[in-house]
């Protein structure tokens, strides 16, 4: 079964089951390992990618359901150098182990596209990803700074 995927602007025909999880197809077939496995049940958000600009959790997304749609991973948004979100992450020294940060950055990037100046509450309602190192205070600071710039 071949599924045609558009990932980071490139088209890939992958020979996988329709219900193969998008996360593992991205990681194991396309060798894009920036997207992470954390829980497998859409609880933690480490696997967040964009599908047509929306943040989705790829670990429970059957690959056939996103055939033909525009999929963007952390590698895709980074291709042109650091984005304002990534620059803010560096300036505020957000990551510790860094494992969840691809998902965090994808979730925050999607939010800021529709709401460039979120309140703390809007941020918390939209970005429900888990970070075990506890980088939330700095994520909040970085987003406050981005929101102030609008």
């Amino acid at each position, binding site marked *: 079964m071949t599924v045609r995927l558009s990932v980071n602007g490139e088209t890939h025909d992958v020979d996988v089951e329709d219900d193969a999880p998008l996360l593992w197809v991205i990681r*194991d077939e396309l060798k*894009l390992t920036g997207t992470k496995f954390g829980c497998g049940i859409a609880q933690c958000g480490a696997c967040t990618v964009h599908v047509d600009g929306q943040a989705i959790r790829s670990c429970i997304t059957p690959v056939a359901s996103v055939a033909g749609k525009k999929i963007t991973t952390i590698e895709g948004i980074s291709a042109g150098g650091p984005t304002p979100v990534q620059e803010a992450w560096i300036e505020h020294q957000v990551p510790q182990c860094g494992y969840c940060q691809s998902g965090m950055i994808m979730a925050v990037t999607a939010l800021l596209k529709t709401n460039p100046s979120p309140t703390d509450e809007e941020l918390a309602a939209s970005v429900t990803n888990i970070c075990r190192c506890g980088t*939330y205070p700095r994520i909040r600071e970085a987003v406050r700074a981005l929101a102030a710039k609008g």
Partner: protein
Amino acid sequence: MATTRRMVLLGGATAAGALVVGYALWPSDRIARLNALDTADGEQFVTNWIKIANDDTITVVIPHCDMGTGIFTSLPQMVADELDADWSKMRSEQAPPDKLFANGALVEAFALNGAKPPAFLQGLADNTFRFVAANVSVPPIGYIPQITGGSSAVRGTGIYGMRVSAAAAREMLIKAAAARWNVPVEECSTAECKVMHEASGKSFGYGELAAEAAKYSPSPTPKLKPKESYKYVGKPVQRFDIPRKVDGRNKYSIDTQTPDMLYAAIRISPVFGGKLKSVNGDAVKGNRGVEKVISLDDAVVVVADRYWRARDAVATLAPAWENGANGKVTSAEITQRRRDALNGTSLKTDVDEGDTAAALAKGKVIEAIYEVPYLSHAPMEPVNATACFKDGKLEVWAGTQDGLGSRAFCAEAAGLDIENVTFHLTDMGGAFGRRLPGQYNFLTYAVKTAMALPGKPIKLIFTREEDMQHDFYRPNVMSRFKAVLGEDGLPTAWVNDYTTDDTANPQAHILYGIPNQKISAVVVPTHVPTGAWRSVEASWHGFFAETFVDELAHAAGKDPLEYRRALLKDKPRHLGALNTAAEKAGWGTPLPPGTARGIAIVESFDSIAAQVAEVEVSDSGVKVKRVVCAYDCGLVVNPSGLTQQIEGAIIFALSAARNGAITIADGAVEQSNFPDYEMIRLADCPEIEVHLLETGDRVGGGGEPGVPPLAPAVCNAIFAATGTRLRTLPINGQTITKQG
């Protein structure tokens, strides 16, 4: 012996500034061996851990792992200062898992010099010597592998190792330049990666001198800089690793890619200690991509060409397990066993001061029993490892808290000589103690899988469920306190009987000067595997003691801050931290109804952490709104990085205090993933304020000591808000009602 070995200094400054010097074995060929093992073109080791390249780039080779704590930047800060380096020339990299980079050299150093290493280094020695002795062919005095734990990288490797090694290297560079110029070393100075001769105006870059400098013996007594002249230590230097952690480039264990890789998923006996009785592997043999079903002693593994195929296949198997008596154990029964043990006769006393029996007889005894549950580490990256067994050699890729020890462990698991094992230590998505020695079940299974299917690398990844149900848990423990107050309201007697999984806990010893004290432990073994969880025993004794002290303050009718001040009146560092936290938090200022503050102070890993939590209790539950932490670790290397660690520790502790409980039913863990082992997320993250203090002579740790005061500060705030005293955790699920 003496003629074939030189000595390298490994020491530290005492309070008075004099050097305490230790020596490590420094075979004359050490530099050559280091160069052969771990240099690129144009690089040269000058002393242990420090490489200098032709272009003056200085690379610090770190004998620890990167699990997110920032030591790959803070240790280079310490080196840069002692070496008079230019920060733009500083780099760091992972040490290979080789004996040349065993950080046990620090302990050897003390041992050879006849001096006693600091207590925390002794702990590392005790824990690892046994393991090493059993697993590795070692020189007579043994060596410590490459442990990252015990909040020891800066206070151990940094203070006793790297700083001194860098100062020695600087002196060697000066000697090399002075020899070239034929001038006395006293006429030479260093700055920004250069040795300068002021009178002639000449200078050499470090890169030009490295090879000659390396020929000198490192001085046993290099002059260390006074703190006032540090340029980099104490500054919020940006971490080297962060740019590659924001764009997906950073590689973790799970990202290991090799040609022809296969993937494996595992189901381990749900009951700890259970055995695999049988499994019908034929059920999945026709599945797409499935290569092999492997029956292990206590697990079944499916190997496939893709991870999800292995995972889905192993999930459909119906293994039969032999559970034995453990299959009936429940949390309630474990709790009962602990209560019985506290009432039994096996308690062993390790603190017995004054006459507690007489003191208890003189007043009303205040008694309380505290208990905390098992906790899982749940790092974001579930444990995993890649292994390949080919032509009698084993190659392994994994993130662990001890690269060298892991290599030895894998050799043992495979029945191979360590020389036939290559171990690639990767970065890891969090650890918090999960990836320490003694907790390498993921390595065991990866190695056994590789041995069962030789010739191909196989990446074994635990699902989140397997990770959570086959962890090495923070122990479930219990404490029973008895105290009596004197006329001034302060305790005259303090009795603490507690349960432990293995040995007595030094962290049960209290900060407070109470005249009659008796502290006793009883070992209550269970079949549940336990291990070090960020802040280890301080995580429970901090909660127990600091909540019980709050009970005593209440019984005495005193303000909890004033009460602690009175108890700590002879301890200026503790008082300083306590007062800072209280002042910055606005202790005593009015708060809205239903909101209150609680305070706690715990010393662990040689650092003092005082926290004030501001907590709102309403119909919708408990909300921690703000946490203020004062933190005194003696020396702050990177204030930004250290603040990160403390913020993270507070959130880690809050997840546990609010929600964390691993419970046992039918011998197995009941929780399986984040819905039933919930974490703090952005919505519940309090405002956090960290105030760093630098007093005292000892340098304390940074990774763990922020954890222990959080739970008692929050529970003391809940008491202040409602009058409900919580003596167990987690908070959620307990009834909190406004008392009279």
